[in-house]
């Protein structure tokens, strides 16, 4: 028996470079309070709590969910802590879905966060480890060579990345929770300093503090309201090894496989035309073009053309990252759940100023590691 699961509440914090006004507990609770309020529920209505965040070294604490039990209302409840690198927020949401789908828990609170201002994120992401070859480039420098390969394979013109970045900011201008919201032009981007050629400063994600929480419920409870829920039609988390010979980090197999699995389960055969909007994990501009291909929205080599034609802008054929995405907001542990949560908000009709009109079917996506971890879900305004 396949039980239906829905998102009945979404709550997130106002993301910023440093949430000096709240402790980690306060930050997380800001999101959980909003999510529960959105769902018209109290902590006592939750049967289990699933939490996810990225490496604990980012904040200099270990398994902080243990001291957050009180803040998240998990006292005397089952609790699970997920950690799957950059995709963690998304795999946490999917873990929560599985809990409800199992029939063992009727309402689950899924939370993802990062308060990385409390540590040294740059160090935490790229420490020099013994017996491992010394780093030659920072985190962004790891991915940039594959962006170069994408450009070489496709012959895409250099302005595509800056177009993506400028458009992301335009989107964030319509999202009150986003971290970076000031508009910028393509020229602003191309004039910004080159970090790892071909990626410039204004084409990279920020470092943010933030949290998001989702309330997931079974069909009977979801139908009780008060909001129109977002039905989770499918979800999956995949991984591939780092050192497979010939592994393609431009068009990763695990990403393609994940998309195939969730599309099939949701009855999507023509993503470009069936999906109304997609929130995909784009930490550096060019990944938007690459992921449009990897997620099957177009043929190989065509992703950048969608950008050039502006077909992924707000109001166009397939709005990508109407929230502004990771390029505008990146609390590492939360980013994956922000993608999935924003997709849910769209089909719930609750995305406010960045609502894609009439959105009924949305995709949320996140990735992590050396392009290894991929987590996605498909949400709909209809249960089946």
């Amino acid at each position, binding site marked *: 028996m396949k039980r239906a699961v829905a998102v009945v509440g979404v709550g997130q914090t106002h993301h910023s470079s440093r949430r000096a006004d709240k402790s980690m507990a306060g930050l997380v609770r800001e999101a959980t309070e909003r999510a529960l309020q959105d769902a018209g529920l109290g902590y006592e209505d939750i049967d289990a709590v699933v939490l996810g965040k990225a490496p604990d070294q980012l904040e200099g604490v270990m398994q902080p969910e243990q001291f957050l039990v009180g803040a998240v209302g998990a006292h005397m409840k089952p609790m*699970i*802590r997920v*950690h799957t690198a950059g995709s963690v927020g998304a*795999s946490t949401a999917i873990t929560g879905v599985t*809990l409800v*789908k199992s*029939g063992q828990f009727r309402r689950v609170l899924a939370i993802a966060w990062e308060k990385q201002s409390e540590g040294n994120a740059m160090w935490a992401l790229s420490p020099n480890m013994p017996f491992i070859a010394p780093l030659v480039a920072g985190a962004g420098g790891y991915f940039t060579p594959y962006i170069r390969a994408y450009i070489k394979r496709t012959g895409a013109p250099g302005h595509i990345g800056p177009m993506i970045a400028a458009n992301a900011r335009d989107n964030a201008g319509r999202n009150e929770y986003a971290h970076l919201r000031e508009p910028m032009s393509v020229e602003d981007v191309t004039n910004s300093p080159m970090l790892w050629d071909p990626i410039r400063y204004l084409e990279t994600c920020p470092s943010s503090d933030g949290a998001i929480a989702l309330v997931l419920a079974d069909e009977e409870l979801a139908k009780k309201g008060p909001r129109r829920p977002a039905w989770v039609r499918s979800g999956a988390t995949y*991984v591939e090894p780092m050192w497979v010979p010939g592994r393609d980090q431009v068009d990763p197999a695990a990403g393609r496989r994940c998309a195939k699995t969730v599309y099939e389960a949701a009855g999507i055969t023509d993503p470009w035309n069936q999906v109304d909007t997609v929130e995909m994990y784009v930490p550096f501009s060019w990944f938007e073009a690459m992921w449009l291909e990897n997620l099957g929205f177009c043929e190989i080599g065509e992703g950048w053309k969608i950008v050039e034609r502006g077909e992924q802008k707000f109001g166009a054929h397939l709005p990508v990252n109407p929230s502004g995405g990771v390029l505008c907001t990146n609390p590492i542990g939360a980013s994956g759940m922000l993608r999935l949560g924003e997709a849910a908000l769209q089909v719930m009709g609750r995305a406010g100023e960045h609502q894609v009109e009439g959105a009924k079917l949305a995709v949320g996506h996140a990735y992590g*590691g050396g392009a290894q971890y991929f987590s996605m879900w498909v949400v709909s305004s209809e249960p089946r």
Partner: protein
Amino acid sequence: MRNVAIVAYAQAPFVAVDEHHTSTEILYPQIRRALADCGVEREAIDYQVGGSADYVDGRVFGFVAAVDVMGSWPPKQDLHLEMDAAFAAHYAWIRMQAGDCDTAMIVGYGKPGEGELNRILNLQLDPYYQGAVGLDLASTSALQASAYMARTGAGDADLAEVAARNRAAGARNPDAWLKQPATAAELQKTPWAVEPLRQGYVAPSCESAVCLILAAEGKAEKMSKTPVWIHGVDQRAELQSLGSRDLSKSASAGMAACKAFEMAGVKTANDVDLVELSALTAAEEMILREAVGLPARGDGGPAINPSGGPLAGSAAMSTGLVRLGEVYRQLSGKAANPVKNARRAIAHAAQGHALQHNLVWVLGNERRWS
């Protein structure tokens, strides 16, 4: 409810520090062994999930290295929890109930010998009040032992007795780490770890890697002649703050046991033949015995920690899964030190300070649901 069984379990021999292998190099052969034991190739496993911790690994994203030894190609459905691997097994079981997989591989690994585990675990405590005063696992365990002893009147000799019994059992278990028994008198002479806990009453840290395979009814019978069925399972977390709870008890262990028993159709812990507790100190064992409804001391009733328990060797991030594995050995007739007529068992896992977060399984040789 789907009947789900353990069909294979492999554990690397415990060592203090393996100076020749990284954690994933220790793990790889255990995965191969577990698969061989249940007679399947990697492709037969639908889902993989691991439990480990970055701080134990002494690196960020430490678990990513495990992906390459787990047979994750072509891409596999996967998850990783920053928890003892027993909790990963619990999630795999939940996934089976959701119908999302029929077989699952659970791995646990870590090399606590590379760091100072006791000191590392200070970071689990809230950084403002408890972590800041320098409490570590040794001291929070001692606070709990002290509270327990104050409430019950248990004394040093009682702790020694519990520890000695575990050491004697460990000596009979070829898979334990400490293979020499120790008498209560000898243990009472060991120096204080943190008073009132002597070093002899505290689990010694060692290294291992484990792989456990779960399969749902329909597949389990093909993978093992003696599948060990899960009858009930539950886990609960409590507030961490040491001052906010009665440290002389573990309310979350009690509740997890209660719920697991309910699911299993078990009235009391006396209905099972053996109990494997993830007790990291002799005091924890007594507290946990009470929590599952057994007398804190004395014989009679089910065998407690016939494996020797963590007091005979505890591998960080795997200890909980090792308890499950030891139950599997006992109930499937593979144990070198068998508990007579063992047909049902309880296995327990914990994490956090002072038994903050507990997981209880009930298992048996028969299927629970028809």
